[in-house]
């Protein structure tokens, strides 16, 4: 245990100190096979769900991963935890490449890396009481302890997520969505993890409840020194909670930057369209805003466009670029690098714009 920012000893090696990433993701690729119908079910193609995603997650940091449905953000989250096998690439945690580990080797590391799911109705077993749900990871990892030890831990966890420990004997159906999401967070925290992957944790909640859960996540982070990968389609929530933001489109990260940079100097046309599409709860600003509307729909990930994957919907490609400039978009995959905007974006013709 060398890291200063880790609260309590979890098992499974050391996490990086400040400056060195806790979790390093390199060129992560996941292709899902598409099979033909009928008896033989030959593989006829691949869904290119995640294509060469790289990023670092630092200690005590929140990295927002945003994108629309089908962009591969949830798949990325699951690849990080080795819940689905990556086609290629590396996820390095505590000096080990998780992608190569067997489920048995992975198990001790799961204490450090936990997941909170989107749907608080589907992710809790309806036949277990809340105490049992929160105690399950402790039992699996042999940490429940004897006597009242385990029970005390569970009570402590419920208190930590702002729930009344007296309610531990209730079943999930007796709780509202916001309360269930808190139970899911308590379960994820049971093993004192260092990294939480939060997959749309507040998307299913009404705003007044959502605010409480967001506040809770912020408190937990500062109390426990957690690192969050916050997967969401809601940029307003991400702007509130994240330190850095990565934007995904069709399996690739198109832009990654510190939060302020991204929202004030978005360089990739997709990020710009995404930011300008979010309605603001402010009538005057909303009336005076210029909106970048995208045409068409997201192309199929089975057969993604060559070169830049966003070019089929890109307003810049359609309206601004010359024929010669467009060739580059068609032929060449734009690398995710800084082109003079102060942060990395994957557009040959990146240009920072202030939108909000």
């Amino acid at each position, binding site marked *: 245990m060398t890291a200063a920012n880790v609260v309590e000893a979890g098992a499974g090696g050391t996490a990086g100190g400040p400056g060195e990433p806790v979790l390093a993701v390199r060129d992560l690729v996941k292709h899902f096979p598409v099979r033909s119908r009928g008896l033989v079910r030959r593989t006829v193609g691949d869904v290119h769900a995640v294509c060469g995603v790289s990023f670092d997650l630092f200690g005590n940091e929140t990295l927002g991963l945003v994108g629309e449905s089908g962009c591969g953000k949830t798949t990325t989250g699951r690849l990080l935890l080795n819940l689905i096998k990556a086609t290629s690439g590396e996820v390095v945690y505590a000096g080990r490449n998780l992608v190569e580990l067997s489920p048995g080797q992975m198990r001790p590391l799961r204490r450090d890396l936990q997941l909170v799911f989107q749907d608080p109705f589907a992710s809790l077993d309806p036949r277990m009481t809340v105490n049992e749900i929160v105690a399950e990871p402790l039992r699996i990892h042999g940490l429940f302890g004897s006597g009242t030890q385990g029970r005390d831990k569970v009570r402590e966890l419920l208190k930590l997520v702002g729930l009344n420990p007296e309610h531990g004997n209730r079943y999930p159906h007796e709780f509202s969505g916001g309360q269930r999401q808190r139970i899911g967070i308590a379960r994820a925290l049971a093993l004192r993890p260092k990294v939480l992957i939060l997959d749309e944790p507040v998307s299913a909640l009404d705003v007044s409840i959502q605010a409480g859960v967001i506040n809770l996540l912020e408190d937990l982070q500062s109390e426990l020194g957690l690192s969050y990968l916050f997967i969401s389609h809601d940029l307003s929530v991400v702007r509130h909670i994240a330190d850095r933001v990565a934007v995904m489109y069709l399996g690739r990260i198109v832009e990654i930057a510190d939060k302020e940079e991204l929202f004030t100097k978005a360089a990739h046309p997709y990020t710009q369209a995404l930011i300008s599409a979010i309605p*603001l709860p402010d009538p005057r600003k909303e009336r005076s805003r210029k909106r970048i509307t995208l045409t068409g729909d997201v192309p199929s990930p089975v057969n993604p466009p060559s070169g830049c994957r966003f070019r089929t919907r890109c307003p810049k490609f359609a309206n601004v670029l010359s024929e010669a400039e467009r060739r580059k978009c068609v032929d060449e995959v734009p690398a995710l690098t800084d082109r003079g905007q102060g942060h990395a974006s994957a557009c040959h013709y990146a240009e920072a714009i202030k939108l909000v």
Partner: protein
Amino acid sequence: MTAETNIELSRKAGDREAVLEVENLTVEFPTDDGVVQAVRGVSYRLAPGEAMGIVGESGSGKSVTSMAIMGLLPKTARISGSVRFRGEELLGRSENDYSSIRGKKIAMIFQDPLTSLNPVYTVGYQISEAILAHNDVSKKAAMDRAIELLAMVGIPNPSQRVNNYPHEMSGGMRQRVVIAIAMANNPDVIIADEPTTALDVTVQAQVLEALEAARAATGAALVLITHDLGVIAGHADRIGVMYAGRLVEKGTVDEVFYEPRMPYTLGLLGSLPRLDEAGRERLTPIVGAPPSLMNLPPGCPFTPRCPLAQPVCEEREPDLYVTDAPDHLSACHFHERLVGASAAQLFRPTSVDTEDITPRDLEVQP
């Protein structure tokens, strides 16, 4: 100031010209456990071409209100009050009578286009069906009009797309087909119930644009029901905030967004994370949970969650009072106290689970 005088006031303001007038609409559902009071005295009027947003959280009665207006509630529902379309009463009409108005004068757009479109017919057939139901034209003419409508809502290659089945289209396109059906007969009123909730933001922007195009083409008034305050800010002239089956605040979008006079509205705005604000200032959730609409206690239903609550709030439910602007109404005994107040001053930035507690509990426990 009583509710009646308020109705008088707003009647003077609009008088005869309203396309849709909802007055004291009440909807109750008898169940085995008791009567659910889903809508409790909702009144509003919609001027021609006007866009009115209705916002509220799940279960606040916003969808039931619009279903009652459209006559789509099950027979078990007990509906009272009055819904007038251009002065004609709609409540209590026979199904046949309703059919002549529904889809022609008042059209509705539902949340989920996959359930509002029929999977076994082409979209062209479904649009022309809406046209043929109310007009005496040939099938050919109806199909041509369908293509024209698809083009209006921004669907590329409409002459080919018209032969698609719903499953061959994306979610955003399906919702645009539903909008095309809604505008097929040049309605006077379009009621859109969470039209973009199931969609991604960039697609939401496209669909809202299609909805604006539909309004521009038909001159229809719009009732836009949503839980997203941002959508209302950009697409409505006036807003009504619903809570526990009642409209608790009404006004122009500017009045309600910048100077809310009902603690619930202020709380909603304070619990929203903002895209346009930097920094990590804390959000202020509203403590407690919305009340059950069965056996509501007397008094203001927001009392248990309200930081301003006083004994009088538990005794008497406030009427819609006129605030500083004549059309800005608020159902709060203490609406004057909200002048200049911010959410951070009234609500606590707590992170505990607050659904079983009241604001007073927060004062004691840090």
